[in-house]
């Protein structure tokens, strides 16, 4: 049984990671995107290479007026950003960073818990879109709903394959059972999981719900100031969570070439690489159309995930 100080210490660590990692991802996106597009990213805030850009952004957001459109459903409108952001914080608690009990809280049905809680984040965008009293927001919200419903399934199926392979739903349990040859074994599931997660985050190329050229900014059209910043933070926290989950489920988390006590370094490294891939994909690919997004989900990802489950089952039986 953990004592109170231990619990507090763990919560504090998770909160710190929650506040810090998305900022690092955001900064990395500024610079990586800029270099990939052959231009200069935000350079001036702070001294060296504009390291304080995100701090400056935060100050700017905090200064802006907080507007609720007339005719909007006030309470729902105001609650939406919090609902979009909080699930990622809760998910972070359950992600094992290092060997043993280097985790906020060990949850027995970890995979189930994590995916269920992540599904709640969708609600934030939907609420924002519905409550804004704005047709662009409504369209964006409905697109979000359609997209997230479509991609929830392949994501769950891919995660289920790993849980099947390990014979447990607990995230640390999965990592304990993990072997290096799971990497090629589960690669299809990993790709499906990562792609579906990308779509859940509404990141490019799956950003039709926030398509700024068609529906302005989708469900977030009417948001200003801090509430808008919270939605942005939710996006970057989502990148962190998705990368960490993919690293834990498919890349072996704290397993590394040197199986030492420094397992958490491996987890963070894999997470960082995946977060970079998220940014990289954003720069490289054009936005998919709404119907293309649906087609990818139902005709590519779902069959692939089912194939992975079948493969996992066969190999599992053969091993035994």
């Amino acid at each position, binding site marked *: 049984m953990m004592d109170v100080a231990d619990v507090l210490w763990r919560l504090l660590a998770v909160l710190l990671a929650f506040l810090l990692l998305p900022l690092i991802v955001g900064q990395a996106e500024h610079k990586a995107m800029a270099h990939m597009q052959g231009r*200069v990213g935000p350079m001036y805030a702070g001294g060296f290479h504009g390291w304080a850009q995100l701090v400056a952004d935060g100050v700017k957001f905090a200064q802006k007026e907080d507007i609720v459109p007339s005719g909007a459903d006030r309470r729902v409108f105001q609650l939406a950003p919090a609902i979009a952001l909080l699930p990622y914080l809760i998910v972070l608690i359950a992600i094992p960073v290092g060997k043993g009990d280097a985790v906020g809280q060990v949850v027995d049905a970890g995979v189930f818990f994590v995916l269920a809680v992540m599904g709640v984040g969708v609600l934030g965008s939907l609420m924002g879109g519905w409550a804004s009293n704005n047709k662009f927001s409504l369209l964006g919200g409905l697109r979000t709903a359609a997209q997230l419903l479509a991609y929830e399934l392949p994501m769950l199926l891919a995660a289920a394959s790993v849980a099947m392979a390990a014979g447990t739903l607990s995230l640390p349990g999965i990592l304990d059972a993990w072997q290096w040859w799971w990497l090629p074994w589960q690669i299809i599931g990993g790709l499906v999981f990562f792609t579906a997660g990308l779509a859940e985050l509404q990141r490019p190329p799956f950003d039709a719900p926030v398509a700024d050229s068609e529906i302005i900014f989708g469900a977030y059209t009417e948001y200003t100031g801090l509430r808008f910043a919270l939605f942005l933070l939710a996006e970057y926290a989502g990148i962190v969570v998705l990368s960490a989950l993919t690293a834990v489920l498919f890349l072996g988390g704290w397993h590394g070439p040197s199986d030492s006590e420094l397992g958490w370094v491996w987890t963070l490294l894999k997470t960082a690489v995946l977060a970079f891939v998220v940014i990289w994909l954003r720069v*490289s*690919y054009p936005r998919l159309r709404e119907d293309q997004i649906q087609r990818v989900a139902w005709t590519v990802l779902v069959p692939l995930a089912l194939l992975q489950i079948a493969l996992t089952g066969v190999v599992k039986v053969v091993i035994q």
Partner: protein
Amino acid sequence: MPVPGSGLAKGLAVTLRTMTRRSVTAHYPDSLPQLPPRSRGVIGLFEENCTVCMLCARECPDWCIYIDSHKETMPAATPGGRERSRNVLDRFAIDFALCMYCGICIDVCPFDALFWSPEFEYAETDIRDLTHERDKLREWMWTVPEPPPLDPAAEEPKELGAAHKAADKLAAQQAESEQQAESDGESEPPRETGTDPSGPSATARDEQEGDR
């Protein structure tokens, strides 16, 4: 047949390759641009050359040049001669809010009173401040760069060519008259030596007409 998905990989490769290269962006306020000497930044006025002929103001398509002047009469140069009148510039202003930087005023100026300066950082918060009066136009004059040297293979400018020809002719005449003086004795004064006012200008005109 290309491998399915190879296009996606190619896209990723392109962005990754670009990332490893240095960007060529010019950091403008930190490092000033290297402007060519004939950049059209702002117009400088060399007031001493201006005769208030108004050609620039009349040719300006935007009508952004304002000139005020008055006439002054000067006493006759020789006793009993006619009084001279000359134009004195009171105001010369260019409204750069209207100017479209066509450079026609500079081209038409017959007395080389207007010049392009490469300075371009004169934004104002009030549009009225974009009307530059003569003091300011004079200040821009100091920023006008030296004209670039001629191409080494270029033919000589007409002015220089005309001057050289005139000088050669003059020297030849002088030599001729000296020879004549030597042969004729000292009594005869040298004829038409260096006092022919039509000499140089006539040759210059001939040269120009011959070119056309």
